[in-house]
């Protein structure tokens, strides 16, 4: 294969992954809502309803308060771009991402943090009391999830011997090296799952189905947004959820992912990926129906558990190698 062909292939793979992320993420949100509706004995909206919602929002005219600064209008684009970039670092259906030279697993954490940071600023920017409240809560949750996420990621990186996500997933998929040690992975998985629920504003931490409630976190920051800005933020949140699900699915159970770039392997990889992500979405929907939202001051307990689990994963790496 010539150099030009390799470059073209890399660009095609990156574009394909971006398309999959953009196209699948609203359906995942719709699937979770459908699962919740079925558990509550409701018919529920179609799984594809979020696409229609996004299309409607893109057609509407955005209303921007005159008291806001450039941060308010820039945030949706920054959030969308940082989330999409983060999504391109996580292998979805092919284990070797062409962009893996651009950032490792730590870059992924801070790409998410960049979006969260701007969203917090935007919540404060319009000067509404709800926005400030949501921002301060989001800052609490974000500062507590970050150490847990970094620790669980270190536990994974230690067992795989690399912080590069593509290397981790590729090695685990091919069962190379010491990555088959289950105990640190189990702890890191539990920690990362709690972190994923907290970061994407799912039920034990935040309720995504509420508007205008005193307990809301994520929605409180978005209250001032409308039109295409709201659509971009909603889409970015859906993508963030999908990226976290891909991270969990592919770091801990990457089997089935395409380790070579043949059309056959890629199509199997895509089908397996969609099945895994849909399975996790059903799991999240089930959890949202089984548990009540925690009180805000109990959230620290849950995130403390996540941090300790990640720490244990790190410790087990040393303890259990004997």
């Amino acid at each position, binding site marked *: 294969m010539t150099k030009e062909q390799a470059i073209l292939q890399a660009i095609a793979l990156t574009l394909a992954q971006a398309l999959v992320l953009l196209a699948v993420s609203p359906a995942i949100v719709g699937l979770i809502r459908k699962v919740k509706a079925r558990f509550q004995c409701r018919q529920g909206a179609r799984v594809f309803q979020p696409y229609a919602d996004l299309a409607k929002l893109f057609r509407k005219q955005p209303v921007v308060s005159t008291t806001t600064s450039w941060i308010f209008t820039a945030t949706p684009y920054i959030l969308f771009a940082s989330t999409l970039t983060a999504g391109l670092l996580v292998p979805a259906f092919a284990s070797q991402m062409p962009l893996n030279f651009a950032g490792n697993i730590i870059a992924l954490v801070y790409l998410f943090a960049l979006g969260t940071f701007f969203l917090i600023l935007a919540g404060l920017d319009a000067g509404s009391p709800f926005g400030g409240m949501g921002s301060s809560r989001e800052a609490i949750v974000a500062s507590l999830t970050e150490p847990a996420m970094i620790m669980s990621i270190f536990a994974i990186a230690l067992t795989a011997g690399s912080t590069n996500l593509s290397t981790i997933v590729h090695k685990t998929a091919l069962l190379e090296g010491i990555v088959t040690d289950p*105990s640190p992975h189990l702890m890191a998985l539990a920690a990362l799952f709690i972190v994923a629920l907290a970061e994407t504003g799912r039920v034990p931490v935040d309720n995504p189905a509420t508007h205008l409630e005193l307990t809301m976190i994520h929605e409180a920051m978005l209250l001032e947004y409308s039109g295409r800005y709201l659509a971009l933020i909603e889409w970015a949140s859906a993508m963030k959820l999908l990226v976290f699900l891909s991270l969990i699915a592919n770091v801990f159970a990457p089997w089935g992912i395409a380790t070579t770039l043949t059309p056959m392997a890629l199509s199997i990889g895509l089908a397996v990926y969609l099945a895994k992500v849909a399975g996790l979405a059903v799991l999240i929907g089930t959890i949202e129906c089984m548990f009540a939202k925690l009180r805000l001051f109990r959230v*620290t*307990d849950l995130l*403390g*558990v996540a941090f*300790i689990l990640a720490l244990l994963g790190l410790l087990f790496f040393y*303890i259990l190698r004997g």
Partner: protein
Amino acid sequence: MSWLTPHIGTQLVDLGSALLLLTCFAIVAQRRLSACVDLFALQSLFLAMTAALVAFLTGTPHIYFAAALTVLVKVLVIPRVLKRVIERLNVTRELVMNINVPASLLICGVLVMVAFFITQPIMPFGHLLTRDSLAIALAIVLIGFFTMIARQKAVTQLIAFLVMENGLFLGATAATYGMPLIVELGVFFDVLVAALIAGIYTNRLQDAFDSVDTTRLSELKE
């Protein structure tokens, strides 16, 4: 059984012990009493599975017997007794603790490290396939002990005591492939009787003080 190499066997035993420690932390973080009991039953189930796995890997039949007894006594009988005790109480959750949950979790994390550093010099001399579990067993004992200090309600203290016993059982299995059967039988009987007595004692406490807070016991009455 070509796939079941000693290496994979060791990892499976390690995984079982890791699950035991995981439920330990869940018990420390849990405030609802009935959920604590459920978690203890789950931990005992993991313990029985780990013991059965060790029995299978080493071909020592008396550990199977101990595992079956664990299921009978600690998964079925003791949780039922505790559930019945909780039904009679006027508390469903632990609200006041000597040490709050995030601090308890951090202290338990430190205890795991302490257990690891204590057992670290011994472990390389072991030749059993369960030797890595020794650190985890010691950690579970320490966490159980700490939980008994950190909680005030009699029921949670009882659960913490039982968690300590689970840690000791795991330690015995890890260090020597289990104690002789007659010793195991005696221990199971002791634990069962201790749980029953503590259950009755909790009910008496409830009747006498209208509370199951054991700190009340330090006030002497005529």
